[in-house]
């Protein structure tokens, strides 16, 4: 990660990112390219939506930006010291041996909030903000429903006010009423603190209402990107058109 002070308005700048995986199959090495020379920019304070075919590389891009997955070529800069991620799979992201209280308190301890009372208050407030109740505090992740776990992951990621949140299908397990609540919370935080969100989702309706710009990924390439209203009103790429038609947003 390089520090790019000359363009403080840019949150992410990625140039020609390529990622591939090598696996052994029947004793032979097989290479499988997942991201192909991807370039894009994301502005500070922007909500950038990322949609596309299942398996097109959305999660891989997210993990690459956070340094979890290695890239083969290209480069990127991120203008935030501790970007946070909400993983697509909440259960594997949570430590099964710890209580929810511990999981939510941990980021506060790390960032140096010394006062126990203050930490607990923050933990409780964050639970409420994602529509959960205090009774969950002493439970372990396995004792929660899928949507409750997903909200714990969101609460944990927001605990230390990150400047950039990379959220991989963060509301996929939530019913529309709770979804609306969580998205409203994110939008409010964005407006108050100007933080940026890379929002991965396959829900094109939600994306329309939530994002400023969207990128459509297909087979590891950006098929199309643009301002949300423009792209939805006048999609150029055939795959974007197909997606919008399948979602019932456009007529064929």
């Amino acid at each position: 990660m390089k520090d790019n002070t000359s363009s403080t308005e840019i949150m992410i700048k990625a140039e020609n990112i390529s990622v591939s995986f090598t696996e052994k199959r029947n004793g032979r090495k097989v290479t499988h390219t997942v991201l192909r020379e991807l370039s894009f920019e994301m502005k500070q304070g922007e909500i950038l939506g990322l949609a596309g075919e299942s398996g097109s590389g959305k999660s891989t891009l997210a993990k690459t930006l956070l340094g979890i997955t290695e890239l083969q070529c290209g480069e990127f800069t991120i203008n935030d010291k501790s970007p946070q991620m909400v993983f697509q799979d909440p259960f594997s992201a949570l430590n099964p041996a710890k209580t929810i209280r511990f999981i939510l308190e941990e980021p506060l301890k790390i960032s140096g909030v010394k006062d126990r009372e203050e930490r607990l208050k923050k933990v409780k407030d964050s639970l409420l903000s994602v529509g959960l109740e205090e009774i969950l505090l002493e439970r372990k992740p396995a004792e929660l429903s899928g949507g409750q776990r997903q909200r714990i992951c969101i609460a944990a990621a927001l605990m230390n006010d990150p400047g950039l949140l990379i959220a991989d299908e963060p509301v996929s397990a939530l019913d529309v009423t709770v979804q609306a609540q969580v998205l409203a919370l994110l939008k409010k935080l964005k407006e108050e603190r100007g933080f940026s969100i890379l929002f991965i989702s396959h829900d094109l309706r939600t994306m329309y209402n939530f994002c400023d710009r969207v990128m459509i990924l297909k087979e590891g390439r950006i098929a199309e990107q643009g301002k949300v209203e423009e792209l939805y009103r006048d999609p150029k790429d055939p795959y974007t058109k197909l997606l919008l038609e399948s979602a019932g947003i456009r007529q064929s």
Partner: protein
Amino acid sequence: MKILSVKDLTIEFHDHKLPERAVEKVSFDMDEGEVLGLVGESGSGKSLTAMAIAGLLPRKRLNAFGEIIFEGKDMLKIPRSELRELQGDELSVIFQEPMTALNPTMRIGKQVEEPLFIHHKELSDAERKAKALDWLEKVELHDPERVYHSYPHELSGGMRQRVMIASAMVSDPKLLIADEPTTALDVTVQAQIIKLLLRLNLKQKVAILFISHDLSLVKQISENVIVMQNGSIVEKGKTKDVFDSPVEEYTKKLVAAIPEVRF
């Protein structure tokens, strides 16, 4: 013909200071070949109800009361060995979180074949593999051979979800419990999967309990629907009636909160 009858299902946890009741007096029936939608608030007890029907609730730390009659047997009472006979054969589950249901150290192919190993010993290795590959292809995985040899962590979220669907369908169950089976899929793949489920329902008369928070999906797939809130059923009936003229406060909120796209 009834295939499933749930009567006064109540589930209580005892692992904390106060007993917590997560499911309360849930009753419903399913006919052979019926598709029944189950929607409701996050945390309302949908998955627990599903796990109870599949005989997959832990028998420690919680109490389950009531009756769940499937094929003449009470799933809450029959011994483990009898449950295992039914699971993955007559009845199978697409779990809400594929990563927790899949074994991280076992290749996908073996996992999809597992129900066949247990319930269809007459098949040869080659026949089993052919069946597994066929199912991986049916769930729209582009490169079934690669997926067959992969480990779960080498697949995307939506690919894992489709693997779950394949492994649930491979042994032609009579009852399929699908817990949020398409949450990780893009709309085009989702549409294909819904078509596939409906085709199986039509041709093989698989009954499907379809749990989802996506109302438009439930409208497409199921004739009848149950709405749960806070552990109880708050509304049930024909899907069209329930969503077009909801009676309960929660159902109204649910219908009103569907995001709209206005240009």
